[in-house]
């Protein structure tokens, strides 16, 4: 705890710091809200939609017979800049991009440790999709039935044969041309399309426990990514590598290392090693949420006597942890918020949204309709009161998210630094309260757009301060005395710069007020 009773901020780990710095570098080019690293999940969705559109096109022209498949797709390569040729190339490059974005998304969440407690479900359902991605991606090469498809199908069969599952080797299906039948191609179609449909279904589970799941990146980023992929299709169109011939080994291949790296790895090592590596990595990903973790943060608690069932906490909760039920005290209103402890992130965004969290209430002990036990709004009010009512009042209050830049770096004789569970834990009325009780300026620091540890906190905070989301910061609060700033981990210099600006403003305003004061009578 700090001197004023606010919770102390945790120091970020090395990997988080490293990743944050990488994101901040990309912020300079794209802006935080369009940063591809911050948007890796939505970009993966974009690649999936591109795969769906181009895949429907290709399926329309694909001859799903063993004899006709190659010619039907190779025909598109003869005119690589036609619509069909572009669709074929786009399908491949979108698949590559999908794998890259998925890997970045996975890595980002892993670096931030976002796989435990309330995030366990999303992590596990996401990891469960990885085998589907791999199967569908590899299976797509078989449908083409060129030399690369022949190599991939044979290698996959030989890899699967290393497992003691089947009485007869699958690889015998690729001993000669006679073995590859139209029925086998029906299986290929199922592997590629059926598994892809399962993947989409699985994604629905993956985003089940979050509200307002973003399944499309910001428009500018989507346009930029699409233009990049289309440019790649024009500059380096994808072509077939000759008709499959099972009597000849495709000795030299133009290899898609992003999607098919497992085949060369198997031939360079062994099927057993590759299985061990693959299953070991997959098992490690699945085991991560079960590794003993620090004690989970306390979850939000509802006080029925102060909850009027307005539903703002329900609207703002990023993890769908709140439901509304009939209120047990009818005189209080129609509904009561109920917190699902398994889903609650303990971010406090609900407390910031609750209208009963206003510090202007005259009760000696401020009890909100929904609050965080580890740092309730009453403790927040007492922290602010102590600073403003001390013999030497603190003129600047700096509120900040404990998952963003370290707000405590601003602590000084004239600054009270208050780390919050999330910036959106701060009811906007606290800003007005501080200003009306003697503070000259209030600094509100949050994560960047797209970088919020609790997904929506930075956005809700910005909208509340802008007056576009309830609870509003009232219009009569002088905006020159309120300075919102976005600063992620490692961007403490941005906080110091913002504080310098706010100090200068308050000094200038103080000087103007001094000049405007009427001179005392002689």
């Amino acid at each position, binding site marked *: 705890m700090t001197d004023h009773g606010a919770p102390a901020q945790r120091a970020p780990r090395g990997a988080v710091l490293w990743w944050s710095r990488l994101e901040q570098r990309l912020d300079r080019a794209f*802006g935080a809200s369009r940063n591809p690293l911050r948007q890796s999940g939505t970009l993966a969705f974009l690649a999936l939609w591109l795969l769906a559109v181009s895949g429907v096109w290709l399926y329309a022209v694909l001859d799903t017979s063993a004899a006709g498949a190659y010619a039907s797709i190779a025909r598109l390569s003869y005119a690589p800049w036609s619509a069909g040729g572009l669709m074929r190339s786009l399908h491949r490059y979108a698949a590559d991009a999908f794998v890259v974005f998925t890997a970045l998304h996975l890595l980002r969440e892993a670096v931030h440790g976002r796989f435990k407690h309330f995030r366990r479900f999303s992590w596990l359902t996401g990891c469960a999709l990885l085998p589907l991605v791999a199967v569908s991606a590899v299976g797509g090469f078989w449908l083409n039935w060129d030399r690369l498809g022949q190599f991939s199908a044979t290698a996959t069969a030989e890899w699967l044969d290393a497992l003691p599952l089947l009485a007869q080797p699958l690889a*015998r299906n690729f001993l000669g041309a006679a073995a590859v039948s139209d029925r086998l191609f029906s299986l290929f179609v199922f592997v590629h399309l059926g598994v892809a449909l399962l993947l989409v279904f699985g994604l629905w589970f993956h985003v089940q426990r979050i509200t307002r799941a973003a399944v499309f990146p910001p428009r500018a980023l989507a346009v930029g990514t699409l233009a990049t992929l289309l440019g790649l299709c024009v500059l380096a169109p994808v072509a077939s590598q000759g008709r499959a011939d099972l009597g*000849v080994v495709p000795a030299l291949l133009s290899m898609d290392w*992003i999607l098919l790296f497992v085949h060369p790895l198997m031939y360079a090592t062994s099927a057993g090693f590759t299985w061990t590596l693959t299953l070991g990595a997959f098992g490690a990903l699945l085991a991560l949420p079960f590794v003993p973790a620090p004690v989970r943060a306390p979850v939000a608690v509802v006080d029925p006597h102060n909850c009027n069932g307005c539903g703002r906490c329900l609207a703002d909760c990023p993890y769908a942890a709140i439901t509304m039920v009939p209120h047990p005290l009818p005189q209080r209103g129609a509904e009561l918020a109920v917190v699902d402890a398994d889903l609650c992130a303990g971010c406090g965004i609900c407390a910031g949204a609750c209208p009963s969290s206003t510090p202007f209430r005259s009760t000696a002990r401020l009890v909100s309709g929904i609050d965080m036990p580890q740092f309730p709004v009453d403790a927040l009010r007492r922290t602010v009161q102590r600073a403003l009512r001390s013999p030497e009042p603190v003129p600047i209050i700096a509120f900040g998210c404990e998952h963003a830049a370290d707000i405590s770096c601003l602590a000084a004789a004239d600054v009270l630094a208050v780390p919050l569970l999330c910036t959106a834990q701060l009811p906007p009325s606290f800003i007005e309260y501080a200003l009306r009780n003697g503070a000259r300026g209030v600094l509100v620091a949050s994560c960047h*757009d797209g970088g919020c540890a609790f997904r929506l906190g930075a956005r809700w905070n910005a909208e509340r301060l802008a007056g576009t989301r309830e609870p509003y910061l009232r219009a009569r609060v002088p905006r020159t005395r309120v300075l919102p700033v976005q600063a992620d981990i490692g961007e403490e210099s*941005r906080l110091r710069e913002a504080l310098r600006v706010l100090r200068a403003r308050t000094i200038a305003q103080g000087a103007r007020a001094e000049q405007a004061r009427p001179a005392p009578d002689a």
Partner: protein
Amino acid sequence: MPEPATPRSAARAVGPRAWFGQVLLYALFALAIGVFSHWPPYRHLGADEALIKLSLVHAGKPVGECRERTAEELAALPPNMRAPTVCPRERSPVTVELDIDGAPAARIEAPPSGLSGDGASAVYRRLTVRAGERSIAVRLRDDVRAEGFTHTLRRRVTLAPAQVLVIDFDAQSGGITLQ
């Protein structure tokens, strides 16, 4: 006193440097995807190599002789199960040996599949060899009651680079086959 500037928001980057940065990063992304989607080429087999696939699925002979049930044994069975002859379910493992140019290249003993050991034995083995003329000798044993190998094949073949030679077993075609 002039109003100090607010720290520039990182939410939306603007300006020529930001545009240049975006173009550069999109180009790097395209380059990474474009390159690793095709390059470096993968050589699965040497330029002067061929591949022999020794692959067969063959059910070995039963491990024992069939015999006639005695009258007592038949009487002890339910009426609908009184088959006069009884044969052991378990089959012999299939042993395959392959010599290339007189040197042993593979020796595989494949057990019968199935929980009762009554299914076919399966063999699949890849062997990379130099292309050119090769002497192939294959021996197969599928009966534990017989002495030595029950099927043999010896042949000289000329393998072109990258050619796949499949050594299989087809009882109807006379046993061991080369494709």
